[in-house]
């Protein structure tokens, strides 16, 4: 199989799957090592992005997924009827920010950092499948630990959690009330 053929097959698989397809699965099916698959898939992302296509490929978590391009949003959205959806509250964004950097993290830690009860924000995030329970802490009361989901990466444009910038970057952002960063 030459690279063109492999690309064709990966493209077909991504279309058929709809959801993300893990690199492992791609390499299993094609009977090729992961490294090769990864470099071909990564190259496809660039190709799709640069060509005049309406769809593109995103790397999310440990796999790849097809989606329509943001540039087409204004047109594509007219295909659908719009349901008014309550966006996330500031509390939910703050809670999500804390979970993203401290995961897996307990409810108590979130509240200590925010200085305020975060129950409703947390349940909203769980409803939106941005956060899920991820085990329990081996501590008195065995508190539930929370972590972000693959949908978090998808919704906020990250490939993996290691894509998150250093949290200290945000410490330097404002001083004396002026935005610096």
């Amino acid at each position, binding site marked *: 199989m030459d690279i063109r053929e492999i690309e064709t097959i990966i493209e077909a698989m991504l279309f058929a799957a709809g959801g993300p397809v893990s690199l492992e699965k791609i390499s299993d099916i094609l009977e090729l090592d992961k490294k090769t698959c990864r470099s071909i898939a990564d190259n496809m992302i660039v190709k799709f992005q640069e060509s005049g296509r309406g769809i593109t490929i995103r790397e999310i978590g440990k796999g790849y997924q097809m989606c329509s391009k943001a540039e087409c949003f204004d047109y594509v959205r007219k295909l659908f009827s719009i349901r008014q959806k309550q966006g996330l509250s500031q509390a939910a964004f703050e809670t999500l*920010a804390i979970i993203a*950097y401290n995961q897996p993290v307990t409810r108590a830690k979130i509240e200590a950092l925010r200085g*305020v009860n975060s129950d409703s924000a947390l349940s909203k995030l769980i409803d939106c499948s941005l956060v899920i329970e991820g085990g329990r802490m081996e501590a008195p009361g065995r508190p539930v630990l929370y972590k972000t989901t693959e949908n978090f990466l998808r919704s906020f444009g990250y490939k993996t959690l290691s894509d998150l910038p250093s949290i200290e970057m945000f410490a330097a952002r404002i001083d004396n*009330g002026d935005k610096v960063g």
Partner: protein
Amino acid sequence: MDSVLSNACKLKLQNFEGPFDLLFHLIEKNKINIYDIPINEITGQYMDYLFAMREMDMEIASEFLVMASTLLHIKSRMLLPERKPEETDGEDPREQLIIRLLEYKKYKEFSRELKDRQEKWKKLFYKAAEFGEIEWDEVKFDLSSYNLSNIYAAILQRNELKTNKNTGKMSQIVQREKITIKSKIKEILNLLLKKSMLKFSEVFSLKRQSKTEVVTGFLAVLELAKAKKVSLEQRRHFSDIEIKALKK
């Protein structure tokens, strides 16, 4: 400084997410250096906000009150003349608050970035994931009319093989033999009219009768004994049971 009332009125009564959120708002609004918070001024403004909230009949979360008392505590510590160095740990009373505020600030800043990113990334459309299985029919159908008639003939033939050719000749359906305790009681009583003593093995034996019949017979004997119509005697374990009629 402006009066308490005008300050309160200037404060847009937005909903703050928590005491840190409110403090941050005040720090940003006053362009205060976070490392050197004028605690007197901030506490004053913080309290003004709480009073305003109360006047508007807004619910004040307990966390706001905890922060209010923390601020007042810090303020009072700063007003006190400094104690001798050996008595104090040399710590600025504001230090703990500043550490927590700085920590909160990082996440608040990131949460703003998350909000921006979401605006950008929500413009992508995805397909729902297909389930992990597909239906796949390996059999290939060739549905020409010739084939159809062949298939039909094959079905007829198969059906014929399945049906029992003797069906029409059958006139009776085998039934389970019906043995009732009542009939066995009658049988025993009839026999006892002729002989005063019976041995169980004479009447019921697996050599001559079915298991059901022997068991039912045994139950009939027990019924008769219970009704005091017969007396039973068994000399040893597993020896024969002697049945004698009891005269009224």
